[in-house]
């Protein structure tokens, strides 16, 4: 079995996610891109776990999923409250915390 395909796919997914976080303004889309990056990392972890025949990577992937689920809950709640006060879901509008 060759790791290359999996790793290249994971790299592509991570890059899409990272670029999406940097260029998109919609908070929901940014959020989904973060998820995409997390899942690309999960893919890498699972790939290496399979390749080495150990389960450490898989356990790590489960942890990431749990953290991601919790993060989604908190993140969506923040986005909702921002939307309620500003009538916008653009991340650039939430810029009060500065110098």
């Amino acid at each position: 079995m060759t790791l290359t395909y999996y790793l290249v796919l994971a790299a592509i997914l991570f890059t899409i996610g990272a670029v999406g976080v940097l260029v998109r303004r919609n908070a929901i889309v940014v959020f989904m891109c973060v998820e995409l990056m997390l899942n690309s990392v999960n893919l890498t972890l699972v790939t290496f776990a399979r390749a080495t025949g150990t389960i450490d990577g898989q356990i790590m992937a489960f942890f990431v999923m749990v953290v991601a689920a919790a993060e989604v809950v908190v993140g969506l709640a923040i986005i909702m409250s921002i939307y309620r006060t500003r009538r916008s879901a653009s991340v650039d509008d939430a810029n009060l915390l500065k110098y």
Partner: protein
Amino acid sequence: MDVLPAEGLLAASWLLIALPLAGAAVLLLGGRRTDRWGHLLGTATVVAAFLLALLCTFQLAGLDERSVDVDLFTFISTGELDVRAGLLYDPLSAVFVLLITGVGSLIHIYSIGYMAHDPARRRFFAYLNLFVAAMLLLVLGNSFVALYVGWEGVGLASYLLIAFWYTRPAAATAAKKAFIMNRVGDVGLALAIFLMFAQLGTTSFEGVFGTVGTLAGGTITALGLLLLLGACGKSGQFPLQAWLPDAMEGPTPVSALIHAATMVTAGVYLIARSAPIYDLTETARTVVMAVGALTLLIGAIAGCAYDDIKKVLAYSTVSQIGYMFLAVGLGPVGYVAGLAHLLAHGFFKAGLFLGAGSVMHAMNDQVDMRRFGGLWRKLPVTFGTFGLGYLALIGFPFLSGYFTKDAIIEATFDRDDWLGWTFGGIAVLAAGLTAFYMTRLMLMTFFGRARWEDGVHPHESPSVMTVPMVVLAVGSVFSGALLVSIFPLSDWLEPVFGEPEEAAHVIAPATIGIALTVIMLLGVLAAWLFVGRREVPVTAPVRVSPVTRAARNALYADTVNESLFMRPGQWLTRALVWVDNRGVDGAVNGLAATLGGSSSRLGRAQTGFVRTYALGMLGGAVLVAGALLAVTAG
């Protein structure tokens, strides 16, 4: 000089200091409650001290050695320094104690009348008592440290009393000037004491005088010169003479007690007490003589030009103390002459100041002699006592100044070298000037047409003021003959200064006596020619010769002090303030401003845009990953 332990009444001689000190404490701490009887208590303590001093001196006279040490307690004991507080009651200190308490008592009594209308009379008596206590400690202390404590004490009392009317800016300034100029001298005295301790390990008179001979000649000369600096500060001698005339801003009894009879003679006491040091250093003695000769001339010249009655008397004091310095600078032959003049001067100058106070009292505190005139008819007692003091001061034959000043001038000529002839000549010239300025003062004050301001009605002072003046006038008349011939001071002081040696006279005493009388009469005649026979203008003439102008400015002593010390001091202060503001403050404030500015500039990086932060995090992560790769690959 053998010193006996104290017995009997002498063992209680510490009471001499304690009595006035207690008086001062009660009056100062008691506050307004003591207002009603404060002046009586203040006078009583000093009179009691005088009576005790008389008894102590009688007991002392009966002893074989006539020198008694009263050991009191350990004052300072630290490491090698062990200073015992104790008193030395010997003929020299006895003479001073009698002068201080005697003249002090008379002036306290006089002050009861003089200060009767002053609301702060109690404070005045408290300070006077403090002064008497400090002055007695100065002359009774048995070590240089004890002397120094008294020395500073009289400086403090002098400051407080000059500034007694502290709401008057002139008085406050004069007090500060006196204090600062005294400080210059005190530094010299303090350094001398440090030098004694460093070189000899002791500061007691007995220890220092016993071992001073083991020191190198240069060290002894340095000691002598430092002590002289201290003496110059306290006694208003050149170059520190300028504070004394200004000190006349204080009440007149203060001028009489502190700035004529007692405190300003402390310098003479210091040099006479340090005789064993000066005996070993010809150089320091010559400097003492030079200072005395220069000062007596400066004082006499300045005294001729002033119109302020108290300032004329003050310059006269400066000049007369110059005579005493000249005498003690002569060495063994001069100590007794200087001290005799000191005692006689204590009588007649205190009397003259009290007389001046009485005149001021009569003339609504006017001090300008141009506004006096013709007062002899209105103030007969003041005129009589003042006149006797005046005759004693100018050296009228067979009054006290005649004997004591003659002795000094005689001893100066007896040196029979160019120094003796120069200084003797100066002293003779100044004797003529003394006659001139004192006659001028007499003529302007008591004779001629009345030039009083409107609404002034002169009246004789109450008897509480005139009686002390009469007593002092009697002293002025007889003290000289008493001290020189009838009850010779030289015999009494023999335990301190040794057997008086028979002087080889260069000029016969009779010749000097006649010559001085002639010069004195010339001075009186000159005063009559310049002042007495014409009308005295009410305002001082403006168009005068440069000599008169220089004399009116006291030979520019203040100008020299101001341009040499005060202005450079002010410049230095200003420069330091500038360095502090711009340099030190600038560095601190600049650092704070730089930090604040750069942090606010760094804060600009916090834009608030989430995506900027995200880019930063990504960049950071890439950097870390790259670095890890580079490390592992390498």
